[in-house]
């Protein structure tokens, strides 16, 4: 049992974080012209990981096998860690005295910038895994490109996150293959999940003025340039999984990036933000 002094040690994590933030100088962070787009884009990165992490964390204690339960919690944990980094930088860029927590817990749905794909309900494990796979494949190629970002701070976050996301993609690809080529039932469920999610996958590659601005500044890649690599990853895995890529359009459902969401996001926020909303200004 830890002794009392041990338990009253001040929070070293916060100290370490502020020390790390002071480390690398990055002119983009103070660039006034770039600020609105850069802030928005950082929220997109952080909101994707926050909302998907939230969804995946809903599985905790309810997974289909103990190993899977652990892996899902681990993935959610990684994504929440990425959120702290992306939204932390977003708050810095915004420079209005807000924190990553303020952004996560005190914005309403209209201000959330995640892809609609991330907020869809978990469904069964087939939907959860297929959603992870489609997102992981994008996330992996995105972060790989971001490690070469003109913004050192972005490149630094991307490099840290990429290690974990490479593993996420490896794991979700592997499971898509095994379940796609498993039993008749697992195959049918995976195909159904793919058909359902496919129309949400295109949003990842549809650029708007925000994406153009950060691409022009050399901070992020041109989204359309990521598409072929994503397509290749996805097609290879689907082929091995004996699954069929849907014929229909991939970009049917869009708008999350601009703050137009599905009905589901409101419920996520109602749950996630409950304590911060019910007890304004309290510290936890």
């Amino acid at each position, binding site marked *: *049992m*830890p002794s*009392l002094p*041990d*338990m*009253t040690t001040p929070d070293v*994590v916060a100290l370490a974080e502020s020390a790390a933030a002071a480390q690398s100088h990055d002119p983009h962070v103070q660039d006034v012209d770039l600020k609105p787009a850069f802030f928005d884009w950082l929220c997109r990165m952080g909101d994707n990981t*926050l909302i998907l992490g*939230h969804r995946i*964390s*809903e599985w*905790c*204690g*309810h*997974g*289909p*096998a*103990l*190993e*899977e*339960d*652990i892996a899902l*919690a*681990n993935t*959610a*944990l990684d994504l*929440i*860690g990425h*959120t*702290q980094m992306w*939204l932390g930088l977003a708050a810095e860029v915004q420079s209005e005295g807000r924190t*990553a*927590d303020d952004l*996560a*817990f005190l914005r309403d749905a209209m201000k959330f910038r995640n892809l609609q794909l991330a907020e869809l309900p978990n469904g*069964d*494990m087939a939907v959860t895994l297929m959603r992870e796979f489609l997102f992981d494949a994008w996330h992996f190629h995105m972060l790989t490109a971001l490690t070469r970002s003109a913004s050192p701070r972005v490149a630094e976050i991307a490099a840290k996150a990429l290690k974990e996301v490479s593993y996420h993609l490896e794991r979700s690809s592997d499971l898509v*293959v*095994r*379940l796609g*080529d*498993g*039993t008749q*039932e*697992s*195959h049918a*469920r995976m195909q159904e999940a793919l058909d359902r999610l496919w129309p949400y996958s295109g949003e990842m590659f549809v650029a708007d003025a925000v994406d153009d601005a950060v691409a022009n500044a050399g901070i992020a890649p041109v989204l359309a340039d990521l598409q072929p690599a994503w397509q290749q990853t996805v097609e290879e895995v689907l082929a091995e999984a004996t699954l069929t890529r849907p014929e229909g359009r991939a970009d049917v459902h869009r708008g999350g990036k601009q703050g137009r969401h599905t009905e589901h996001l409101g419920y*996520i926020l109602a*749950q*996630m933000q*409950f*304590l*911060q909303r019910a*007890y304004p*200004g*309290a*510290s*936890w």
Partner: protein
Amino acid sequence: MYAQMVKSEGMKSADEMSPEERAFQERIDRNEKIEPKEWMPEGYRKTLIRQIGQHAHSEIVGQLPEGNWITRAPTLERKAILLAKVQDEAGHGLYLYSAAETLGVSRDELFEKLHSGAMKYSSIFNYPTLTWADMGAVGWLVDGAAIMNQVPLQRTSYGPYSRAMIRICKEESFHQRQGYAIMMKMAEGTPEQKEMAQDALNRFWYPALMMFGPSDKDSVHSAQSMAWKIKMNTNDELRQKFVDETVPQAEYLGLTVPDETLRWNDERGHYDFAEPDWEEFFEVIKGNGPCNRERLEARRTAWDNGQWFRDGLSAYADKSAARRRAATVAAE
């Protein structure tokens, strides 16, 4: 303590033991570790399976009351810490099921017994987590009580169990600390936060005391388990130790332990304290706790809904093994 009222086989005197049994007991008395392939009395094996199984079940059912607050954690950091904690508990389940497997019982068999109600898990996880302060109280008191029991179990006679305990204890002290950190924040926070903290202590105090199992005078299975070094201390010893360590921590928080009879006894060098309501305890064990039905249903549903997933993976494993065999044949 995650193992309560584990039924143990009857105690034998040295004269009643066979030569094998006597040699086995002597090894234990010399603090030698018993390893899976070695001879052991059937009663030792059975008792261990019950105890390790119950402990493993407690870890995974224990994910539920805390998992209940992951999506509502108040900050990103708290969310990450809680996720890591609940993930650890699943990991503890995994180590313990593996330890039980070395005794010849599969994880699926143990799950089956959990789901049918033939095996129990700790009574504590049948209580609900109602406010965020409960995440503090559970870490502080529940993991705290678990540590009380598990630290001595690191020296238990069965090698795989002892090694699992050593790994688990490292993580449990982090769990307790994060719980206490939440309590500190709440206790020094707004009046509402302080109220939640006190309420959490009020609700979890007696259920935490119950974790050590019934009073020694009613604890029928202790002697044999202690001789086998499967159980290292009596229930009352551990409960007293827990109270002695926890009361000053509650005082430090400025919270009141919900026991009017609680007093330091100079003569004994221990706190005097009120026993929990044992009738309530036996009701919870019987299935009549506030959340028994929900907890078990959640575990069964997860298992049933996961059937196709597990079947899919094993079908794929069979297919790829067949493909590998075919490829080897073709290559020859």
